[in-house]
């Protein structure tokens, strides 16, 4: 079989990226069809097939691997449309999902609306039982009462059940018993037990992930079964793999059991594309990946080839919304994109966002009812976006409308329309810079020592000044920038993680306890490895992580262990040394000789998948290339400049373009600022050097 397909179903667009056997990637786009996902996927595939010059049917028949990323589970959480789920908790603690960790932003804002807890109090039931911090039973499970409560859920038409008891991570017997009772009394209702899904200390994140997982089971199981059936009917015979929030892929049968892993899985794929592209161009493995959409700007980070993860992923608002509770790819989003609205505050300061015109009504230049100046309008005013060539000419823009809304602001500022437009783009850029600094500086990474990989349709408008401000000497803007997440699907491995909680201090290390934890984790990884081997996967790797803290420190820090097991005092020394180093790098302090408390342990199985080779792009081989046309574009330090516009497909390898210039690709536009340089790489991507 000669093709592989990666699909990313977003809220608005479905992206399909087809890779042929030479590693050439072709992008197809179509509107997402929420009621029948296959339909949108199929049109996007038609679109890609047309670009390749073959029939979509024959591509599907000749494809061995299809990876699928979806926002369906994310949307179900955000719109509260997952299953009607009951939550069973330890008696005395029915409000864990309301209290969350506590805390909020904006100390002076007392008019904030708080999202309801993920499962309302009315569907939360208290079960009489209690385990203590060492796993001892303080109160046995009241089986009779628990049975009554479970049976009482039936007339409430409960569709899924989440079970999360205190200290089930130390002694799961009560959760397991309740699981059996559910199977006995409500055999058709899917359920999730907290110690099985996410055995980490801290009841809030564990309960939150358990509730989310259970609530997604009916919906996502149905979704995957239907989609797989449509694919098979259409003649697809290859592997069906699904993207996960940990930046890997899993077989659909595994994801069906733990659908929470599909939440936020789309953006989690972008860093994989980033690392694949950067390595192919020999640009190192310290990478910052940015993805600019219409309303948000997402940043993720790769350091020494390792993706940065977090256990603090929130939906519907940081701290006040719903916590994913699982370790997932750290993606920082800010509300800055093409649709962000510019305005002037009561002190006379120009501001951009957080309000966005989105796709509806959209920027003023779309002519679809938008009447406020947006970042896209500013780019049109500055001549960066050609009204007749937007999205490869598929949509024409209204320059006058853009100029009119920007003028309304420039009049108040007593600045020219162009200066104001440049200001709008610069302020939007500052917000993006701040998001990048947050994720890098907080992790002790100097952005200047990293390569920036820029994706998203609007990335090329201001990535050069952003890179310059961060001190990044180079930016890689892939030809497929418009579909970075889907591209990531092509470069992903099957990743599986299992955690367990075991307290152990480096002062008096619990070798037996921790070694039991490692063997429990390994047993689970072994089982998965075996099952993957039976499907023909043969290359495996394992990594181990610990969440640890200095004695009495309040929050744990996760880091990768420099070993595969902890068996002797020397291993503990190595762990300690690594902790000090990582702590110093991230927080600029370390306590020499300080005792370290280890809390949660995690093992990761990585099953290497075959990946498309890095293509040598089929580029224009002639040594000559000409600008398609010349436009007038505005640059802050130069004013209006006669600026050549190039069509990406015309440019030969290694051609160098010195700004001011504009390069148009079907799904993105690259603005080369004065004196900055764009170079076409062997892969057909753009390597930008800010000046």
């Amino acid at each position, binding site marked *: 079989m000669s093709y592989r397909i990666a699909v990313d179903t977003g809220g608005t667009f479905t992206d399909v990226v087809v890779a042929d056997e030479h590693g050439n990637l072709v992008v197809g786009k179509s509107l997402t069809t929420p009621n029948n996902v296959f339909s949108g996927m199929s049109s996007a595939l038609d679109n890609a097939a047309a670009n390749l010059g073959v029939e979509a049917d024959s591509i599907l028949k000749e494809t061995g691997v299809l990876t699928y990323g979806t926002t369906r589970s994310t949307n179900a959480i955000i719109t509260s449309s997952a299953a009607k789920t009951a939550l069973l908790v330890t008696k*005395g*603690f*029915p*409000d864990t999902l*309301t*209290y969350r*960790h*506590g*805390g*909020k*932003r*904006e*100390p*002076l*804002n*007392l*008019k*904030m*609306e*708080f999202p309801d807890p993920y499962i*309302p*109090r*009315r*569907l939360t039931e208290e079960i009489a039982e*209690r385990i*203590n*911090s*060492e796993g001892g039973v*303080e109160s046995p499970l009241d089986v009779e009462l628990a049975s009554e409560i479970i049976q*009482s859920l039936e*007339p*409430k*038409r409960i569709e899924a059940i989440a079970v999360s008891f*205190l*200290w089930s991570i130390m002694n799961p017997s009560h959760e397991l018993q309740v699981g059996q009772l559910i199977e006995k009394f409500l055999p058709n209702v899917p359920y999730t037990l907290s110690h099985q899904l996410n055995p980490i*200390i*801290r*009841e*809030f994140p564990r309960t939150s992930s358990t509730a989310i997982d259970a609530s997604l089971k009916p919906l996502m199981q149905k979704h995957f079964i239907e989609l797989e059936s449509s694919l098979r009917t259409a003649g697809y015979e290859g592997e069906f793999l699904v993207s996960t929030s940990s930046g890997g892929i899993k077989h659909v049968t595994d994801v069906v059991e733990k659908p929470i892993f599909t939440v936020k899985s789309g953006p989690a794929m972008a860093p994989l594309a980033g690392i694949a592209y950067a390595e192919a161009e020999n640009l190192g493995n310290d990478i910052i990946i940015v993805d600019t959409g219409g309303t948000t700007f997402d940043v993720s980070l790769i350091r020494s080839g390792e993706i940065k993860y977090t256990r603090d992923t929130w939906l519907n608002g940081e701290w006040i919304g719903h916590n994913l509770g699982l370790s997932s790819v750290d993606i920082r989003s800010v509300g800055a994109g093409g649709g962000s609205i510019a305005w002037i*505050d*009561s*002190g*006379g*300061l120009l501001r951009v966002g957080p309000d966005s015109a989105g796709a509806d009504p959209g920027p003023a230049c779309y002519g679809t009812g938008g009447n406020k100046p947006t970042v896209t309008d500013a780019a049109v005013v500055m001549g960066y976006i050609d009204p007749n060539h937007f999205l490869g000419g598929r949509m024409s823009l209204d320059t006058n409308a853009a100029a009119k809304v920007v003028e309304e602001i420039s009049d108040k500022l007593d600045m020219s329309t162009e200066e104001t437009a440049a200001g709008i783009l610069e302020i939007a850029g500052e917000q993006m810079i701040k998001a990048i600094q947050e994720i890098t*500086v907080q992790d002790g990474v100097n952005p200047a020592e990293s390569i920036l990989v820029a994706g998203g349709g609007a990335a090329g408008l201001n990535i050069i000044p952003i890179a310059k401000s961060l001190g990044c000497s180079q930016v890689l803007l892939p030809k497929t920038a418009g579909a970075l997440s889907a591209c990531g699907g092509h470069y992903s491995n099957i990743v599986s993680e299992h955690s367990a909680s075991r*307290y152990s201090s480096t002062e008096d290390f619990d070798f037996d306890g921790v070694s039991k934890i490692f063997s429990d984790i390994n047993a689970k990884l072994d089982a998965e490895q075996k099952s993957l081997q039976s499907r023909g996967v043969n290359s495996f790797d394992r990594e181990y992580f610990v969440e640890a803290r*200095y*004695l*009495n*420190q*309040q*929050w744990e*820090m996760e880091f990768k262990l420099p070993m595969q097991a902890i068996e002797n005092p020397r291993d503990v020394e190595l762990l300690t040394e690594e902790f000090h180093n990582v*702590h110093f790098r*991230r*927080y*600029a*302090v370390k*306590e020499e000789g*300080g005792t370290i408390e280890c809390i949660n342990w995690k093992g990761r199985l990585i099953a290497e998948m075959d990946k498309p080779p890095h293509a040598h792009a089929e580029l224009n081989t002639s040594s000559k290339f000409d600008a398609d046309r010349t436009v007038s574009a505005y640059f802050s330090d130069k004013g209006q400049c006669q600026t050549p516009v190039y069509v990406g497909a015309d440019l030969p390898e290694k051609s160098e373009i010195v700004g001011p210039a504009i390069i148009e690709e079907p799904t993105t536009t690259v603005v080369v600022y004065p004196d900055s340089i764009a170079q076409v790489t062997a892969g057909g991507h753009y390597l930008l050097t800010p000046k």
Partner: protein
Amino acid sequence: MLLTARSSVLGVARDFSVSIVTSEDEVLAAAEGFPIHVWGSNLQTACMRKNHPDFKEGDAYIHNDPYDGNSHAADHTLLVPVFFEGEHFFTTAVKAHQADTGNSLPTTYMAQAADVYQEGSLIFPAVKVQENYKDIDDIIRMCRRRIRVPDQWYGDFLAGIGAARIGERSLKKFVDKYGKDTVRSFVREWLDYSERRCIEAIKKLPKGKLEANQSHDPIEPWVPDGIPVNVKIDIDPDEAIVTVDLRDNIDCIDAGLNLTECTSTMAAAHGVLSCLGHDLPTNAGIMRRIKVLLRENCIVGIPKFPHSCSVATTNLTDIIVNVTQSSFAELEEGQGYAHSNYCNSAAAGVASGKDWRRGGEPYINQMFLMGGGGPASSETDGMHYLFVAVGAGLLYRDSIEIDEQRFPILVQKMQLMEDSTGHGRRRGGQGTEVVMGPRKDAIHILHVCNGLESAPIGVRGGTSSKLGENVRIDKDGKEHPSPAVMVCDLEQGELLRARDQGGGGYGPPVEREPERVLKDVENHIVSEEIARSVYGVAIAGSRKDDTLKIDFDATEELRTKMVT
């Protein structure tokens, strides 16, 4: 700072703040933090410059002097002057509440301290603690000798210095990138711009002179009748100035509740600013438009040495914030807020003892197992876990599991209480009940609270909530209520039951949408009985099959009766 902190007051309660102060001692920017905590660093940098006119690059100063700019002695502030090409541009200030500062009793909120000597904390009036980027070990050694759990203190000190030095590095880069002149003129412009924003916000308010008061619970034996707090507010939209006068209050008392210049000022400013909209920049520019009038030797003013200010950040400050905010509600519909929880219950007390699971190792730390209902506004119901007014909803709470791992305790209950809110068109947040006890050896809990004798009030027709309580339940099940200053030893088999308060309501309860009342009934926030008698909403259907609904006819009848 949050992630590297050792003591729970830092890592959980976020009881720290960072700010940038200009070379002219003006707060230029403050990171998100308790308003009471954030500003005032300008007084401390002035103290640093006064006491050390020769301060230089590489220095760091420790300041916790309540008589010269600090909030209270338990907050250690680290000041790092930032130089560029030999010129002093800024000072970074990192203030963090310590788990212990060497008081005579194992608490950092010592209400019973007659004076600073009895309080016992080490006081640092801007003392040099680093030179040439290296610790001055004398100071570190002094602290390590006097502060309980010295490693915890030193860990927090390192976290604070780390944060201040990161700020220093970034600010140097900032000056380097934009140039010295641009930065100097930016500082002026930014403060002027901030002032303009504040002017515009004040101009939107109605003109008015307001006066209100509220009493703090009695503190035996010093103030057996409680502490009355009077707040006078003059809102002048024409001049765009809001003046808060705190001078008409009693003198400093011989107990630890006296406020400091920093906390008196900032409590009043906090109350005003929350009524001006939350989007204002936090700096000296906006403070030009908020005048706080203080008197020397006043309990809510400028403390007279050696009166103790151990509890200067909470308690009386909560009253000032609440009274100020609720006064604004008198101006017109839409303004101001009801009161929030006053009772920082004993579930947020300082626990100490020995842990038999770790070979009898001693522990001392503040627990944060609190809720505390927030105030209703004209538009929104109160937050369920605001804590208290000055907490501003920022505090994290402890995980039950982490606390049980850290302390040898068993928590039996932590939940929101039904019918604990003040009612109204918008209701307050709920109060929280916590029940806990030692698993084996005794634990010692020290605590000072308020709200045992006074409840948060509602505004514009909204109702008050209920009194808080801290009760020791002995082995026979007998209840022993504790006064505001609590010293409690719990033996095995004994329990502490701590209840804080819901927030007050805003507007008449009969105006609340029946759909909101139904949702409150479904979720055990309001009982069916209160829905009927207070909100005039009749509920039909059954919990058993999840079909509770509004009986619209009966509701209309009830409400008609209530209105007439």
